[in-house]
């Protein structure tokens, strides 16, 4: 059913495409090209001495246990954030989809956190978890838990995961809710008449029909956890203690901005670019298939 417009000649279509192409060129291809170029260089902070080192920045990275540690942290962090954010959003969406009083209010409140800036969200969680001034932090101390995320890597990781996931729950919630509402009631009624209990209806009818939404959200959440959580980590732990919460994206910042090691930082950006291209490709393939579905 796609409508196709056939242009005669080539000038007009290219002209119409030009603004978009220009933007992509200036804001993506140019900086990306610069990053690739810089990843083959090694220079001092002031840019006065530059040396071409080909792939040395990359080979150094893969030999560096700290970088491999950051990669592992990223895997742990991203999967935990994704599972937590998707799981709680789905649960909340299913609850909000029921006929309850004040559903509109719940929905609005659940969407709010998305509007909170990452740094603010982090400060909020800091106030909750801080060992000496935080509500939860102090409570944990009272019940005898040695809570100190400034020195305990596992606790620090837990905290950034919770803070990062909380930020993403709202986004997932909207999509799940929309997905739930687009499931035809007739299907659900038919299942109910056939005698399926609510749990069974959820797992055999609702969940499969939600799976396109869920898959889309899976990719979006992974991308979020990979690339968009700098603010939360920076404000909460700065990658510490040790390197316990240093993820790949945070390490790009540490090496590029703090340590002024531009070559290595560029090499890390290139690696991240490859990852995000991969994730996007998966998503596009999937969405393509979904169109025919």
């Amino acid at each position, binding site marked *: 059913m796609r409508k196709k417009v056939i242009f005669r000649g080539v000038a007009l279509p290219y002209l119409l495409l030009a603004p978009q192409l220009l933007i992509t060129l200036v804001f993506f291809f140019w900086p990306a090209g610069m990053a690739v170029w810089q990843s083959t260089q*090694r220079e001092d902070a002031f840019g006065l*001495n530059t040396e071409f080192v080909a792939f040395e920045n990359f080979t150094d990275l893969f030999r560096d246990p700290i970088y491999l540690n950051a990669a592992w942290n990223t895997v742990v962090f991203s999967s935990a954030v994704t599972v937590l954010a998707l799981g709680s959003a789905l649960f909340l969406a299913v609850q909000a989809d029921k006929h309850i009083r004040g559903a509109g209010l719940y929905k609005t409140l659940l969407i709010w956190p998305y509007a909170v800036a990452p740094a603010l969200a982090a400060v909020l969680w800091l106030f909750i978890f801080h060992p*000496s001034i935080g509500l939860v932090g102090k409570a944990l101390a009272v019940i005898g838990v040695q809570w100190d995320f400034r*020195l305990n*890597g596992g606790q620090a990781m837990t905290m950034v995961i919770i803070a990062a996931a909380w930020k993403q729950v709202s986004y997932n919630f909207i999509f799940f809710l929309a997905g739930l509402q687009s499931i035809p009631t007739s299907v659900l009624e038919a299942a109910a008449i056939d005698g399926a209990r609510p749990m069974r209806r959820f797992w055999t009818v609702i969940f499969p029909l939600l799976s396109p939404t869920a898959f889309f959200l899976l990719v979006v959440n992974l991308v979020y956890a990979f690339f968009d959580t700098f603010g939360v980590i920076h404000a909460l732990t700065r990658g510490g203690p040790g390197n316990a919460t240093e993820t790949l994206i945070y390490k790009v910042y540490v090496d590029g*901005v*703090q340590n002024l090691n531009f070559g290595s930082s560029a090499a890390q950006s290139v690696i991240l670019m490859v990852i995000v291209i991969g994730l996007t490709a998966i998503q596009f393939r999937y969405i393509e298939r979904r169109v025919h579905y």
Partner: protein
Amino acid sequence: MHRRTLLTGAASLAVAAPALGQTQPIEIQFWHGLAQPLGGMLEQRATDFNATQTKYRVVPTFRGSYPETMVAAIAAFRASNAPHVVQMFEVGTGTMMGAGRAVKPVHELLAETGVQIDFDDYLPGVRGYYSLSDGRMMSMPFNSSTTVVWYNKDAMRRAGADPEKFPETWQGVAELLPRLKANGGTAVPMSTAWLTWGQIENFSAIHDIPLATLANGFGGLGTELRIANPLVQRHMEALAQWQKDGLYRYGGRNNAGEPAFPNGEAAIMFTSSGFRARVQREARFGWGVAMLPYYEGTPRAPINSIIGGASLWVMNKGPAAGGGRSRGEFEGVAEFFKYLSNPEVDAQWHMDTGYVPVRRASYAIAKDRGFYRENAGADVPIEQLLRGGGTLTDNSRGIRLGGFVEIRTIMEEELERAFQGQQTAAQALANATTRGNVVLRNFERANRG
């Protein structure tokens, strides 16, 4: 209407600029990294300088924390738009020394402009940190501090210790901590801020042991870390053990741990002498300042500690700007530095902020005014910088390591792992040495040209 005003304004400016060129003051851009209230006090110095003459106008701008200011200045230089003067924290010194034609060394600036500043009167620890090994000044000393001990006198009293006498040795501290834990009435006996600055860098300086080879990097770029030595290891083992026993609590990186002292959580805090203003404002108990303890039995210890804080660097405009600056601009910078070096100005800065006076003459002025009678302990950091007669050794002159910001982070990361019990202090120091040496070699390679 609005647009027309703008247009006429722009037009008249364009016409007026050449005509006024002779009388317009020369603008000197000055980027600094001090937040309020210190930032306001610093900007006041620029305003005061502007009021003393009409030829130059210093325009101070706050560019975020020290590391942010450093990054901003470097980025501006790469874009050929560097400020004339940038305030650079002490760990950035090695990087700036290696910056080649990005910076204008202060000794060159003064020689070219004919402005005299009496650097002989500066405290040796301050002067040594910012000069070449032959004594020529590279940057302009400004706000200097050093690590000292802040302690809660009330807690000392409750623990049955003499509140006027903080232990001089670590052996004495080790004996005091359990008593503070038992009866001190604070959540934890001891905590630290700026962990590596106080417990490794200054620790090494006062014990006269090297932090790195080649006189802590003053002798060249080929320097290597030497922190994995028995004394530092002994101290780190002690800290890790105390952390385990609840006698010490690591307070986080940089100055994150500081609030635990004025709010009464920690009875002892190791941090900058610049902490004074905050303690004065916030602490609701009797407090004292003491010099850094040392391990009894170490030959030559204790000698002077080294400074922290920041100095002012003169920058060229950038790679695309050719020669960089006009003579007038450099003269303005030199005059501004001369103004800041005035002992009256420096003494006032010291008394307002808690930074140490950088000159002996300013110290004398503060003494004459009775500042130390009214503010007990305010002279402790200065005395500590002059400890051992004030003759600097290769180990107590300062630290000149390229990429030192990164090396400090590495030391902190490895020690954090040790305090968590994931590795021993010896492993932490060995790992930090290995990783830090990689940074040093990369810096050497990037800066040998």
